[in-house]
């Protein structure tokens, strides 16, 4: 724990990230103002106006409250999308590594390459074109894109672990490939997965913002940072705070997560190099 907090990157990252996570959690219990109602009398207030720390938007909704509730959407989408990537990708990577060179390995890695050829936004476009835009479909689109990332990472790391002596002794002891994968390989790739997880988390937040911005993500009335930016675009010349603040929220959250990832990588193993294809 000491090592964690003395790493400057990690400490700053943790601070930034926890501000937004805390904001999201608090928003379940309390927000400075209600975000669902329209209050035209108080519309387009500048930041630091009385009662409205960050000002209001064109419907008179408090921007601080909107950002707090929007953090919920961003974090939820990113967490579930990373979860999908880990839950599907890691077992696939373990299986591919356990059966290295076999037909299964080949199929898993080729299909990963295939998914990689679809940028996440393209997957999202395809999915929303078919099932209509929604937060759930955004999660699926970002999640699918995460699967090959984790599968590749796991396979790469697991392959070198399979050559270790302790795996050999486990094999001699009669353990099957599935059991070895979960008892000996998985615990040793966890660090890598955590680091990659934070990075994918930040990419997920960016992707969700982008999708919501073009209207393929969370739909009204669910507040989302990306849609706040989309709504602010036509008013940017006379209400720039509407565009600045949600954007800064995205930047700080993503920055925090990236710094945390960098810090964790240094802490876990200074020698870890990220797998390059």
């Amino acid at each position, binding site marked *: 724990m000491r090592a964690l907090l003395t790493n400057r990157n990690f400490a700053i990252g943790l601070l930034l990230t926890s501000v937004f996570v805390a904001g999201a959690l608090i928003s379940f219990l309390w927000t400075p103002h209600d975000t669902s109602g329209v209050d035209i009398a108080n519309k387009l207030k500048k930041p630091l106006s009385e009662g409205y720390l960050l000002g209001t938007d064109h419907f008179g909704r408090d921007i601080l409250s909107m950002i707090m509730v929007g953090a919920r959407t961003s974090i939820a989408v990113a967490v579930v999308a990373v979860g999908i990537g880990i839950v599907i990708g890691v077992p696939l990577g373990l299986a591919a590594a356990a059966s290295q060179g076999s037909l299964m390995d080949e199929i898993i890695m080729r299909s990963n390459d295939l998914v990689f*050829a679809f940028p996440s936004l393209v997957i999202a476009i395809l999915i*929303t074109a078919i099932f209509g835009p929604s937060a759930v479909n955004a999660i699926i689109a970002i999640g699918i894109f995460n699967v090959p990332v984790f599968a590749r990472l796991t396979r790469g790391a697991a392959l070198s672990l399979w050559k270790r002596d302790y795996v050999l002794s486990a094999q001699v002891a009669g353990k099957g490939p599935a059991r070895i994968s979960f008892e000996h390989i998985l615990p040793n790739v966890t660090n890598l997965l955590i680091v990659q997880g934070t990075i994918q988390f930040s990419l997920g937040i960016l992707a969700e913002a982008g999708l919501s911005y073009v209207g393929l993500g969370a739909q009204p009335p669910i507040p989302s940072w990306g849609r706040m930016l989309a709504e602010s675009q036509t008013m940017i010349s006379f209400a720039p705070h509407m565009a600045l603040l949600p954007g800064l929220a995205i930047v700080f959250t993503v920055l925090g997560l990236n710094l945390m990832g960098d810090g964790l990588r240094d802490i876990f193993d200074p020698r870890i190099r990220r797998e390059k294809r």
Partner: protein
Amino acid sequence: MCYKCVDIASWVQGGWRGQPGAARRIAKETRGWTIWLQASSQGTEILCILLFTSRALLPNLRPMLRYTLSRLQSLILSLIVASIVIFATVEVVPGDPASFMLGMNAQPDTIAALREQLGLDVPLWQRYLHWATGLLGGDFGTSYTYRTPISEMIGDRLWISLPLAIYALTLSTLIAFPAGILAATRRGSATDVGVMGITQLGVAIPNFWFAMLMVLVFAINLRWFSAGGFPGWEDPLLAMKALTLPAIALALPQASILARVMRSALLDTLSEDYVRTARAKGLTRRQTLWRHALRNALIPVLTIIGLQFSFLMAGAIIIENVFFLPGLGRLVFQAISQRDLIVVESVVMLLVFAVIIVNFAVDIAYAIVDPRLRGNR
């Protein structure tokens, strides 16, 4: 490829080579195959041979040719599978395009006639073959909404999206290379810390938000650029000017990533033995950097540039919406809102095609730069 596939290959070859008449007769029984055969009877054979026999041929070829063939083989396979996946995904859509186009009150026989006209009355796999063979010849089909050939619609839009992606890629390379090289050669200095700080921020900034801020500063306040729209290519300078802000917005995150990759790759090669040897034999720092370290550092950088192309194509979709550029991105969103799925399908296929081709080119470029890679796939 596996060894089982080679068995299948010899079987397929036997079928095709030994009794071409029989194979074709069976195939001709259905319309789809006839179209397929007419379009590319020779192509199919070459395709089959490429797909299945390269493993048997490979050991006898020179490494570079062998490597290229094996990459080409996986390129074709991924294109086939990608097209099947895209086609199948779009087919899942509930609802019939013909009845959607004609509205609620259409007569059943009108709908049936339109279905026939659109080619929706034949079985699924025949439609796939028809679509896929059309793609090979550059024919994407006809838009449900506009009743114009999709290839024309895409052709027009491509003249905005492709230059934009190339412009952005050029910008990002021009920014990233000097920044990465500076940071690596002056490791630990204020320059290094500054570059790393800026790139850390650059990765975290959503490009469409950066685009909005640039519109606010350079278009609304300073009035140097227009806030959006595209004047056409009649005046190339004006057109490039209209693409400048979008290209900068697209390039920013990519340049940040690239600069970081450049820096770490260069740091790796700078600590290699051959760099020390080069210095020991009397080359200056600068000479060592340009002749030895940089060339070797280019390998990972090249991969990232290839990967970035796909992000640029996709990122352009969003950025085009910020600047109201009539490119592929706008086309896709229009098509989605009009349920013109065949257009969505074609644009997505085109994007995926571009990504696969670029990655193929990168793999080949990789092998040219680094002969060691030709040995294994």
